[in-house]
């Protein structure tokens, strides 16, 4: 899985940080999302999908790996 964020879209509500704190954080200066881990391990995939689903600004997207594990 490869995670993408769009800081332009992010409105800083922080739901992603609550869902997957290992993957998402917020910038000190303005609370905008930062990506901590663009290729999180399988154990975090559900949490990342949840973050995508609840992000109010559609600022997070994921690419799934193909069978060979390439993203």
């Amino acid at each position: 899985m490869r995670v993408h964020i769009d800081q332009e879209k992010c409105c800083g509500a922080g739901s992603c940080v609550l869902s997957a704190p290992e993957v998402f954080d917020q910038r000190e200066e303005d609370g905008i999302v930062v990506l901590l881990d663009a290729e999180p391990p399988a154990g975090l995939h559900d949490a990342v999908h949840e973050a995508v689903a609840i992000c109010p600004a559609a600022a997070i997207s994921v690419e799934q790996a193909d069978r060979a594990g390439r993203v």
Partner: protein
Amino acid sequence: MTTAERTEAEHDTGRGAGLTPLTPLTPLAVPATRAEGCPFDPAPGVERARREEPVTRATLWDGSTCWLVTRHQDVREVLGDPRFSADATRPGFPFLTAGGRELATVKPTFIRQDDPEHARLRRMLTAEFMVKKVEAMRPEVQRLADGLLDRMTAGRDSADLVAEFALPLPSLVICLLLGVPYDDHKFFQERSGLLLSLRSTAEEVRTAQEDLRRYLTRLAESKRRDPDDGIISRLVARGELDDEEVSSMGRLLLIAGHETTANMTALSTLALLRNPDQLKRLRADPSLVKGAVEELLRYLTIIHNGLPRVATEDVTIGGRTIRAGEGVLCTLNSANRDDGVFPGGDALDVGRDARRHIAFGFGVHQCLGQPLARVELQIAVETLLRRLPGLRLAIPFEDVRFRHDMGIYGVHALPVAW
């Protein structure tokens, strides 16, 4: 909660219109009163609309009509789509009350603006409510909660939970954050009540708004001379806003910070007391508190009259074409009962994964203060249950006065004993 969307309610002050029975030809009258039978449930007409005609026509208090969008997915689509504007000065914008229409004539805060102006202003506040920063406030919020309960229970075995705990807790916290003297709480709580009442006249709304505007503008001026480490001082110090603009942001945060968490706390307590099996589960396993707060947010959805938007282009939602210039109301409470997303959604279930609820709204206007609301609610619920094991309602449930007359739902008072 949003600090931003929480205060959608600032405009969501609707005259309590009666409910017209829903037939295919009769548009639903909004704002509609919640169910007589179960005051935690959305208005019956709105529920019926979600099941039978999820995107339907509604009639507003002034006789104008708009669309009512009631399902979870459709509401998310509208609120997430920039072709639906939050700008109350656009023709066709649906107002829930005369007071709401009145407020649209004064310079709006960013909750009634669209991007890019909305984003510019909102981003001045996002750092203040980010998860890390708010989490760091836990010890302070806990200390305030304990202090209030110490006072409430000293030498007594009953009290009004709203007046002594549910309201002062978020009020103390937001005053601390903003740098507003808590000693003035009577003054701004009264004004914010008037702004949110469905019964206020346009004149009352104008006066309350003007009182708060003057109060906060004076406060901004004084912070310019004598800054502290509150949000108002930091907004002044940025130098991008004049005192009037700081004042209007401060007003938004002050009202939002009070009315939402206070009502969620009292209503959550009541909902748990009415669902003793759920209360028992929660007492037995306090690790459920975080999830239970999400479930309570979903189940109660206190922004209960719907969020207003106006289409700027023709857009199809749920198979219906909404034309440019037509108003839309997104009913968050019916969306949060949508069985397709929350099976058995009419029941309170503290073990449910309710994270997809949209009680804080959705889209770029979603509640900015939600990390703070969560921390306050988690602490309030956990502390109440832990410290008052015998907590019970001190009056018959039928005598509880629900806020059917307010843009933000809740109870006017909650007499409890322990």
